[in-house]
């Protein structure tokens, strides 16, 4: 007696084959495999295809500094300076102390046509700015939480241990001062995320108008890679601010917001 006839056997083989291909397809779809495939394509010099793989990971809502960094590299090699800068900036938001990202962003920014004159800063100001940018918002908030817990315990101890109060007060003042500084840093980061977001020009050249429309006079032109602060958007136009009097409206499709990524 036959257990399987030929037809059943064919159906079984077909099913197994489909399962195999589906599993391969599923494997191809994991972020890790997409990342590895992107890297392979990057090494082959196929930057456009590599960008596709990295963007696929990002489209799935996965946040990874490594993905943004590699995407930035692929865009840079592909000659898309603006997109490269956007992705480096995003990578820095997630991993602000990554030296490779900082270096590549510096190289990319050196290739920008526009030279933006930044206000001069003193050493202390630069130091504080560097510390402020060295941590992500979440890192800063967690650090603030730790400081609040420490401060609560110290103040509670000062309530109960009257004899140790004199010794505790300077420590409390020190921790409180750090907590205030960290709170200010958090406040700035939150404000920037909620209101004044950064955007980068991703087209070779774009004109900046005095209002949200072509009918408004052209103020000036900016080139690919120039980073600015987006103030508000209206009817597909974005109000931008670079520095000093460099303020105007630019078409939204010519720029890309650094955050949010979607």
């Amino acid at each position, binding site marked *: 007696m036959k257990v399987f006839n030929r037809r059943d056997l064919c159906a079984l083989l077909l099913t197994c084959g489909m399962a195999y291909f589906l599993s391969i397809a599923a494997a191809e779809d994991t*972020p*890790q495999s997409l*990342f590895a495939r992107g*890297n392979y394509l*990057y090494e082959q010099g196929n930057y456009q295809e590599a960008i596709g793989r990295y963007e696929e990971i990002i489209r799935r*809502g*996965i*946040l*990874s*500094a*490594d*993905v943004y*960094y*590699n995407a930035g*590299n*692929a865009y*840079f*090699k592909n000659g898309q300076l603006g997109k490269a800068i956007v992705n480096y900036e995003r990578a820095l938001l*997630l*991993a602000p102390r990554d030296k*490779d990202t900082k*270096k*590549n962003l510096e*190289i*990319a920014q050196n290739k920008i046509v526009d030279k933006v004159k930044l206000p001069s800063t003193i050493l202390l100001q630069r130091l504080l700015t560097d510390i402020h940018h060295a941590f992500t*918002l*979440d890192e800063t*908030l*967690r650090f603030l*939480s730790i400081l*609040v*817990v420490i*401060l*609560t315990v110290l*103040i*509670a101890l000062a*309530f*109960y241990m*009257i004899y140790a109060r004199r010794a505790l007060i300077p420590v409390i003042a020190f921790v409180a001062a750090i907590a205030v500084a960290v709170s200010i840093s*958090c406040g700035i980061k*939150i404000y920037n*995320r909620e209101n004044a977001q950064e955007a980068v020009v991703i087209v070779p050249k774009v004109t900046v108008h005095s209002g949200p429309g072509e009918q408004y006079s052209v103020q000036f032109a900016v080139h690919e890679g120039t980073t600015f602060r987006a103030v508000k958007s209206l009817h597909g136009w974005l109000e931008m601010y670079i520095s000093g009097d460099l303020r105007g409206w630019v078409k939204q499709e010519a720029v890309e917001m650094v955050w949010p990524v*979607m």
Partner: protein
Amino acid sequence: MVYGLWSTVYGLWLFTGVASAADISIAASLDRDRMTINETVTLTVVISGATGRIPEPQFPPLADFTAYSSGRAQNISVHNTQVFAQVTFTYILVPNATGKKTIGPIRVTYDGQTYSTEPLEIEVTDSGPQGYAQAPSSRGPSSQPSLPQTGDQEQGRAQEMFIETYVDNLTPYVNEQVTLTFAFYQAVQLFDNPVYTPPSTTGFWAEDMPPQNKYYKVINGRRYLVTEIKTALFPTAPGQYVIGPARLEASVDRIEDFFRRSAFDIFDRDPMSIFRRGQPVILTTDPITLEVKALPEQGRPRDFAGAVGQYDMSVKADRLEVQEGDPVTLTISIEGRGNIRTLSDPVVSVPDMCKVYDSGSSEEVTKNNYVVGGKKTFQKVLIPKSAGTATLEPLTYHFFNPRTKEYGTITTQPIAINVTVKPQEALQATGPVVPSLTYTEKKEIALIATDIRYIKTELRQMTGLQTPLYRNRLFIYAHLLSPLILFICFVDARHRRKLTQDVRYARLHRAHKVARKRLKKALQRLKEQDSGEAVYREVYRAITEYIADRLNLSASGMTTIELCDTLRGRGVSEELIHKTKKLLEECDLMRFTDVKQDRGRFTQSVNEAEDIIVSLERIRI
């Protein structure tokens, strides 16, 4: 002349008498009326009057003279209670131009009155009679010093002192030593040390030759102390050169004049004159012109380096047997007479197997018998690069001898250095002997091009899009807990502190708790079938101690009536007071009598006590 003036003034004072003694008189005089441009003249201004405060004289502008103050002398005398003073001001005048010159009038102001002298006249000539400033002309080394030619009036003074400069050779060769001698002849005592300003010697390499030479010399029957200062000069280039005039400033002591006069004249002179400063004298010499000859072309060696004098040369190596790479120090010494400091480096030619490095030079300059000479030593380090015999060619050095007027050449013996192979182990153990030979010059790494850094090969961290932490409710609430916890801690700490510090607060706080504990104990005793006395004792204590704690009173010794009165005084209702009084009386009855009570009543009494305490707890007493 000063004394003559003094006599005149004194005579006038006697003549005018006391009535005119308050007047001021002023007189001025020069020690001569003719002088040459190189001489100085002494101006004496005498101001006298019947006052202790003699004012300073005022001069008109002296454009034709440069004036130096030479001090002042003061003479004060008291005659019939009248003070009489005389001040003598002395000035040295140096003429700036020739011609007939007028000095003055010189004025003095006293009590609003101005007194003045007559103008003084003096003739300044270009040449003619010479005084102190006369210097004998330069002369050759063999010439004798001659007295300056002076006028009749100045002859005596001119013989007292004079200066001269001379050189031993007026036509030297380039870089040949010329000895310049400055001689100061003095036959008088000097008031202080003279100031010597040497002549300018532009175009010469000068070498001082101390010490000063002092000796006595008799000229024309007069004995002079001669002080000589010698300087070695080496002309740097051929041509005509001028050694400038030397200058000497001296102060002449005139004390011998004081005693030279007659003993009877002593009262006729200024007795303070012995305290005067010396009379300044400025002496200068004439410039000396030298014709410096170029070194002869004839017979000049091709590699002649300009050494002039007479020299000898020696060379020696610190060792003659070395291993390859080990240094050998060559010491080359050039010794003799001449300008040692300017001797050039001798040329050392070494075989190809060696390298030579300069290691510096040193000089030892001698000035024996006022002839400059000495030794100059050059050191060179020789590094043999390979094994074998390194033979140093004989060194030659050329110089021009100005005595023979010929070029001379000195040659050393050749030096052979045996260089052996250095063992490999020694090289490894000791490393390079001369770091400069084996040192690898380090360079900064140059960036050829800039490119972005490589991609990340591993996906290290991944997170999904999520609500930011600052919007996370749990995170926000967790932070709100902090002030709440702090508030609780604050209240609790305050309460605990009060319990330890405030007795009233502590008793009030524990009153209900203690009372309940007592009642609980009473019920416990009831359960344990204990006597009624024990149960009612606990009930009584529960009520009385509760009230005492609430009111911060002592429970012991307080009677039921006192307790009720206290409650009444705190505004407690009569019903509650009555209820409390009834229960306390029952407790007393049960505690101190043998009355048997139903056990149900025990429980009821405990419950009543609890009601009373709860009722009291609710009201503020």
